[in-house]
């Protein structure tokens, strides 16, 4: 006697939160990518002039006497690595049903974001430029300020995810996966900005 064939179960629905997180991340990446592309265009097209020695050419972009505070910018870059590890730890803990570790991981992610914002503010206070002189200054504050807002949005995501876990919704793995995905994307955006704005200048 043969067993009756089982009918196929309902197809698993793609997670709304995960797809939405990916789309928001894609939009944010397009935003930052566009801004960095304009930065590169402006830098390439910056006018050149003859220096005071009468021989060498100077590009009117970043002034020679302005130093980028590289300790703060590099610290931010490394802090993003910690944020990504913590966000993934939250996913791992949630899958194991460990509420306390999930909460802790999300809290650390949140505070890591806060540390990044703190480092960004410190960098703005250390760098000796104002917003009124040239294209470089305008674009520097605009692109770093936009990145600041994107990191703040990731922190809001961490906060919401943490409150959901604290409220007992530990089974929402998709939210935590979407949260981790967003932090990965934000880290990628910052890495691109870090290389273009702080390393290549």
């Amino acid at each position, binding site marked *: 006697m043969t067993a009756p064939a089982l009918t196929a179960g309902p197809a698993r629905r793609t997670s709304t939160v995960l797809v939405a997180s990916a*789309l928001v991340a894609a939009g944010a990446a397009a935003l930052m990518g566009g801004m960095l592309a304009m930065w590169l265009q402006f830098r390439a097209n910056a006018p050149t002039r003859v220096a005071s020695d009468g021989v060498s050419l100077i590009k009117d972009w970043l002034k020679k006497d302005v130093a980028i505070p590289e300790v703060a910018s590099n610290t931010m870059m490394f802090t993003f690595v910690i944020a990504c590890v913590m966000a993934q730890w939250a996913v791992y803990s949630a899958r194991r049903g460990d509420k306390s570790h999930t909460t802790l991981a999300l809290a650390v992610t949140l505070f890591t974001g806060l540390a990044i914002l703190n480092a960004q503010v410190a960098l703005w206070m250390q760098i000796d430029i104002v917003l*009124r002189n040239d294209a470089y200054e305008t674009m520097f504050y605009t692109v770093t300020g936009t990145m600041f807002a994107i990191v703040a949005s990731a922190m809001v995501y961490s906060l919401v995810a943490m409150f959901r876990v604290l409220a007992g919704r530990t089974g929402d793995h998709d939210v935590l996966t979407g949260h981790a995905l967003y932090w990965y994307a934000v880290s990628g955006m910052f890495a691109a900005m870090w290389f273009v704005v702080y390393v290549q200048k």
Partner: protein
Amino acid sequence: MVMTATQAQSATGSVAVSTSPLGAVARWVTLADHVRIGMSLALGAALWLAIAAVVGVVLGVERFDVGASVVNADAHIQLFSVHQFALVFGVAAPLMLGIALWSVPSQLHASNISLPRLAAFGWWAWLAGSITVLVSYLGNGGPGGGSERYVETYLLGLGLVMLGLVALAISLATTVLTRRNGLPLSAISLGAFSAVVGALGMVLTLPVAIGTIVYLWVDYTNARVAFGGAGLIDSWLGWTMREPQTLLYVAPALGVLGDAAVRTAKSRQPLRGVMLTAMGIAATVILSSVTQQAHVFTVGTSPSETLASFVPYALFNVVPLLAPVVVILLSLLALKAGTPSLSGAFVAAFLGVGMIFTGLVGSAAMHLDVLDLVGTVFGEAALVYVVYGAVLASIGAVALHAGAVTGKALPDLPVTLLALLGVAATVLASLPHYIAGLLDQPRAAAVGYDDSGIVGIANIATSLGHALMLLVLIAFIGLFVSSRRSAAIADRYRVEASA
């Protein structure tokens, strides 16, 4: 006790909905279902279409006689700019998104859209932003505006409009990607497929424009050394309101035509894979948009130089043409495969996509250096073709889905007649400017050309075209409202599209 909530639970457990005017307003303010959001967007777009049509009439009259002046010469730049904004971000983008949000859940057999509150935020952001932009124009703001405060207001409003559209597009794309009831993307309705193509395109391109707006705003409010002030706003953001970027906004029209063909003929699309590929080709516009280049084709002094100019021109101007042309041809093939009959939805969608195609062809021709059309009214005409084509396709979409969404189908004959009138309005509002463009009438200017003879007639003809489109709009709204109040008629499009 005064009831403040819009809903109250009765003793029997049923939910009673407040019928007071305050309750109705509260329900509308807190709307979070696809029908209300979609209809609100369509209504908002209809109001902007009325504004665009009226401004189009004024501009045509203004350009009819270079010597005479209907409006203050200082306001010319604002008038041309508001016309462009109204057509693109007032009509094309919100109308297509609104119709898609309105109809896609019924196409997917879903109860609602995904992320309805995000969509509601998008609607309110678009509404607030578009009103802000309108106010800024009235206060001498906008591109080339003389009032600093209102130029800043314009940038704020434009950013808000784009943010709202991105939120709506995310909600739409998420709906199609997650509420397919297990169907692969290749098996969903053509309308839903084209909607997701357009939505993804907007999600990937409009943030680039938002980034540019942030740069412009910071520069304008501070140093004004990098981006050139109000006079150059259009040079930085103009790509968002020109072809081929506009194809992304109107991409859902392609799916409307595809669905209308198979439902009219009660057939299957014989080459469904090719149809889906053609719709996907519309996404190549993303490449063109984010590079923000004109990609004009110039014949060089050597074959390699000519090829170097032709390849980017063809990629960014000719390839997108394949999307509407293949969809049109395959729709006719679907009709042939079934039992074709007169259908208002098909006629409106077919003519609409045809107009969109004509606009894109015009845009491609404009980028041929040998024709020397850049900077003429030729470009304005191409935009009007695309946007009014999208309006016609939207009429087709409403006729196609009204029965499924509202339970009240629209009568075929009036829709067909309105579609024919609409195509006459579109041609009248656009074709004369193709001719005037070939005769070197400059764009966005009411002086500096010879208005005698055919150019003067062309300008007054465009006025008539815009006025006619306004009549079509009013008549269609009247038809839709009257159909809601009258007895239900048989929905001939109820047969599902082939899977």
